[in-house]
């Protein structure tokens, strides 16, 4: 599973509350990703077993709307997501303060 910045944003949204079911449109709003980017990512995460999707258990007639589909992190997804986000965060960490000062031109 290749963790791009967009995948990392989706994983972060799931990890904010790992037990909470997340709907596609809610994930679009919390990650800022458009549907054309988010849904292929969700499909990839589901195929890799990091998330599972289920249909909402409601009575469509009583609710006046069709049941929505929600996604949940699996145990494997929780561990893998934390590991990948930690690795990405380490990779993108700012260098030590001393290294941030530009070197003077030797010439």
């Amino acid at each position, binding site marked *: 599973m290749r963790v791009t910045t967009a995948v990392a944003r989706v994983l972060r949204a799931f990890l904010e509350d790992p037990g909470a079911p997340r709907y596609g*449109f809610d994930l679009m709003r919390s990650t800022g990703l458009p*549907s*054309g980017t988010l849904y292929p990512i969700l499909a990839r995460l589901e195929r890799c077993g990091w998330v599972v999707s289920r249909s909402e258990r409601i009575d469509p007639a009583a609710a006046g709307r069709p*049941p929505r589909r929600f996604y949940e992190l699996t145990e494997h997804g929780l561990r893998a997501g934390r590991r990948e986000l930690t690795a990405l965060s380490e990779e993108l960490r700012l260098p030590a303060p001393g290294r941030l000062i530009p070197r003077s031109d030797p010439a």
Partner: protein
Amino acid sequence: MSLALAVVVAFVALAVRDLVKDELRGQIERVPHRLLWLARLRLPAELQVRFYDGEWRPELEHILTQLESTPLTRLAVGTGYALGLLWAASRIACEYGAPACRHVPMPLLLSAAGVAAVLSLTSGLGIFGAELGAAVSVLCGLVVVVVVFLVLETIAADLRDTGRRKPWA
């Protein structure tokens, strides 16, 4: 007599205006549903129920009816949602091993057809010169033929689906 006629014409004009307004409103409100239906057609048959009926349509209903916003914003968000899926449908199908991943995205094809049509027109006006103009015309003609074929294929798939009730009907 002419006053009576003017009153009748005014009433008819008002009625027609209201009818046109309602018709336009109804057609505009169906745009996201129609785009989502096109996205559904880009999925293989075995994935259409899982994604279109089970996920995309309920989400679109939620956006168009439950989103706390003005009607125009809801319509814009719903249209954006459907357009994104129209673009991504083949990539989603690809994730599930469907051969649809080999297809070029339809919006890209339509853009290519637009560019080809403009190039063909400018070539017809003699902007490229005789030989280059002929080559550009042939190339653009081929692009347009391929795009028209794929669009017709999509329409044929839609017609095969006529037994299925469309959500906006």
